[in-house]
């Protein structure tokens, strides 16, 4: 995984602040592969929250928090959020969970 320990801590504390202790976050995509270089940060987050307006507000706040840190300033972050909707199972959810790294 190509994340520094400081980047991991930054992500975890921002997720905790914005989404609470019930949220879980994974890194997936090219940053999981140690042999590659550069690339976007693909994050996958599972939340217990269900209200779409609330989720979008928190998502925007989380991305703004991350981009305000020296670790992620000017970095492209793609954040996929999965609310607890049992009938929605997108392929990207499965890929993120099976090929990603839990932070």
């Amino acid at each position, binding site marked *: 995984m190509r994340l520094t320990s400081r980047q991991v801590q930054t992500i975890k504390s921002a997720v905790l602040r914005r989404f609470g202790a019930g949220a879980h976050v994974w890194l997936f995509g090219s940053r999981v592969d140690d042999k590659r270089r550069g690339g976007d940060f693909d994050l996958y987050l599972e939340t217990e929250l269900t209200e779409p*307006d609330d989720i*979008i507000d928190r*998502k*925007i*706040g989380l991305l703004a928090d991350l981009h*305000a840190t020296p670790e992620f*300033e000017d970095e492209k972050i793609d954040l996929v959020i999965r609310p607890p909707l049992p009938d929605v199972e997108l392929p990207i959810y499965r890929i993120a969970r099976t090929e990603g790294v839990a932070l």
Partner: protein
Amino acid sequence: MNGTEKLQAALAECRLHAEVLTEALDELGQPHFTAESATHLTSAQRRLLDQLAYRFAKLQDSMGEKVLNQAIELAEEPIAEDVTFAQKLQRLERLGAIESAAEWRELRELRNQIAHEYADQPGLRAAAINRFVIGVGRLIALWKQAEAFVSRHATP
């Protein structure tokens, strides 16, 4: 083109973006989109949202690159060359050129969310559009504050 002329040109450009945003927002009528209505946007709504997204990005970029940098100089604040944009935003907030550095950063994220498709998540798609429409109004308000600040300090 000297510094003053460049600033005047940048202000005129931003005014135009803000004007088009205001018109498009009026035309859209600020509806509250639902999962259903966000999935079945009318062609007029889609056109207006595209226009809003385009002008929103242009206004924020032009403000950030051409106006806010000048605002710090106009306030005669000494600023190091290697200062980051995040640090400049904090300075601008303290000077009163923008209301909130945090809000500026959130508006920046909104731009990307409006382009995000949210395939098979119509509820989130609707929420992202609604949040963006609110954000358009907030960006216009930020612009007006910055414009007033620059006008105040640029006048001898």
